[in-house]
């Protein structure tokens, strides 16, 4: 009897051990899945349109599709107009109130030679129509993993013009091109990109080629203007993979491949383009301006507030105003994962409402808006875990917003 009971217990422990091993395996599998950008993780959800999809060139191209991350697309969405200048013409992409993009491709004299319309037909699907001289040349769905941005539309319109206004096209990386492989990165063909954001902020990036004898390397130079006043600049040196920036009174610094290798990103995960530099300039300017304002407000408020003994003891142990770093503070391991948008949204929410970590300890100590930020962050993490583990069915309501 005792033997049987001990045997049963032994079996139970084996089951438990197996469960733990399976849990560890699942954790790693989930983490790997979580590291895949959302756009890549669920490609099947997109591209279900009424138009037949274009063929995709199977061989690798110089213009591969790249997910730039939620923060980039959020900031890029603030752009109203992108003007890209090329050696043989200009492409001007405008974003309408409905999110649809209209792009005009002109020659150097300003005559319209091509027109590309990109319509967002659903949250995830877009269709594009290309016309030249009033003739519709093709109408096709945008490749599911391509996220239409203004600079993409400008480059796409210019590429079609360079290909001789084709009516039969195929996807070659992130661009629809005339059939037959077209080598060369389209980003390299741009001479100047001007991005006009909302709230009268404009960024302009140009290529700088050093004069003979000058001790400089070719680079791109971005200047950002707020209401016409220059507020900062960025320089990108491709040969050294070096990014330098200077924003008056806000931030100044540089980052190299070696520096990035010490971070969770492990280095540059993409080749910075001129349009990216404009968006990055906006990121530096807006985030640091807001942080400076919110930081000053928080410090002032913290200094003004009467402190209880408990609070004084707490502040002697915990840093009073913690710098809010980009990404997931204290959880940077997950910066490149599907959790990143939760952290970015929380950071933005904190900046807007002027919160710091004290809002977690005692919600009424700041404002209820801070409690809202924290609640949303918890809910975002919770639902993301539920979605990535497929456990939504066990937690009804956790996966809907």
């Amino acid at each position: 009897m005792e033997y049987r009971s001990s045997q049963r217990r032994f079996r139970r422990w084996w089951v438990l051990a197996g469960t733990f091993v399976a849990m560890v395996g699942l954790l790693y599998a989930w983490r790997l899945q979580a590291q895949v950008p959302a756009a890549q993780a669920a490609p099947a959800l997109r591209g279900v349109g009424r138009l037949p999809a274009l063929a995709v060139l199977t061989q690798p191209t110089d213009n591969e599709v790249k997910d730039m991350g939620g923060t980039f697309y959020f900031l890029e969405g603030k752009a109203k107009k992108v003007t890209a200048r090329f050696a043989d013409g200009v492409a001007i992409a405008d974003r309408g109130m409905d999110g649809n993009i209209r792009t005009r491709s002109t020659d150097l004299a300003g005559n319209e030679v091509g027109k590309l319309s990109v319509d967002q037909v659903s949250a995830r699907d877009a269709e594009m129509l290309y016309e030249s001289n009033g003739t519709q040349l093709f109408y096709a769905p945008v490749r599911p993993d391509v996220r239409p941005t203004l600079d993409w539309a400008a480059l796409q319109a210019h590429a079609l013009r360079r290909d001789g206004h084709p009516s039969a096209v195929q996807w070659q990386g992130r661009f629809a091109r005339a059939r037959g492989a077209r080598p060369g990165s389209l980003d390299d063909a741009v001479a100047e990109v001007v991005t006009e954001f909302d709230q009268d902020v404009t960024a302009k990036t140009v290529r700088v080629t050093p004069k003979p004898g000058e001790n400089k390397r070719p680079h791109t130079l971005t200047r950002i203007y707020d209401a016409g006043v220059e507020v900062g600049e960025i320089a990108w040196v491709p040969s050294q993979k070096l990014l330098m920036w200077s924003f008056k009174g806000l931030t100044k610094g540089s980052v190299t491949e070696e520096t990035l290798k010490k971070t969770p990103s492990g280095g540059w995960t993409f080749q910075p383009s001129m349009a990216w530099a404009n968006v990055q300039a906006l990121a530096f300017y807006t985030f640091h301006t807001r942080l400076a304002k919110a930081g000053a407000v928080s410090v002032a408020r913290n200094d003004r507030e009467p402190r209880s003994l408990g609070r004084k003891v707490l502040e002697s142990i915990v840093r009073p105003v913690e710098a809010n770093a980009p990404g997931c503070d204290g959880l940077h391991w997950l910066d490149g994962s599907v959790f990143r948008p939760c952290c970015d949204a929380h950071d933005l929410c904190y900046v807007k409402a002027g919160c710091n970590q004290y809002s977690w300890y005692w919600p009424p100590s700041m404002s209820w808006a801070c409690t809202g930020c924290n609640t949303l962050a918890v809910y975002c993490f919770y639902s993301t875990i539920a979605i990535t583990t497929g456990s939504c069915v066990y937690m009804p309501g956790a996966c809907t917003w």
Partner: protein
Amino acid sequence: MKTVPGLALLGGITAAAVQPLTPTGWWLNSGRGVAITTIALAVLAALVAARLVKWPVRSRDAAAMSALWVGANIGMAVMLFRAGPGTIFPIVLAMGAGISALAVGAGSLAGALLANVFRRDAG
């Protein structure tokens, strides 16, 4: 029951002592930090379980290993608050608790099973 506070202390000291060995001083900030801390906790749990846990496992043994895990989390929380908790620290602590539970759980089971096999062979 003397082992429970002792194990909590051991877990706390070990977890806190490992943090300076991680690349950024906090384990959940990098993949290497996660690997170092997870391995350290699993090895500690395996050693403790091999020494203390008798087969079949009783609830007292489970309580002892839980104390080790709770202690480890307290130690790590102290280190996090010393470095500056950041803006999402409750979420960070919850994530850390989940991952460390897996590490301590897996280590404990491995240690207990191995010790049981060796004891049986020796017997």
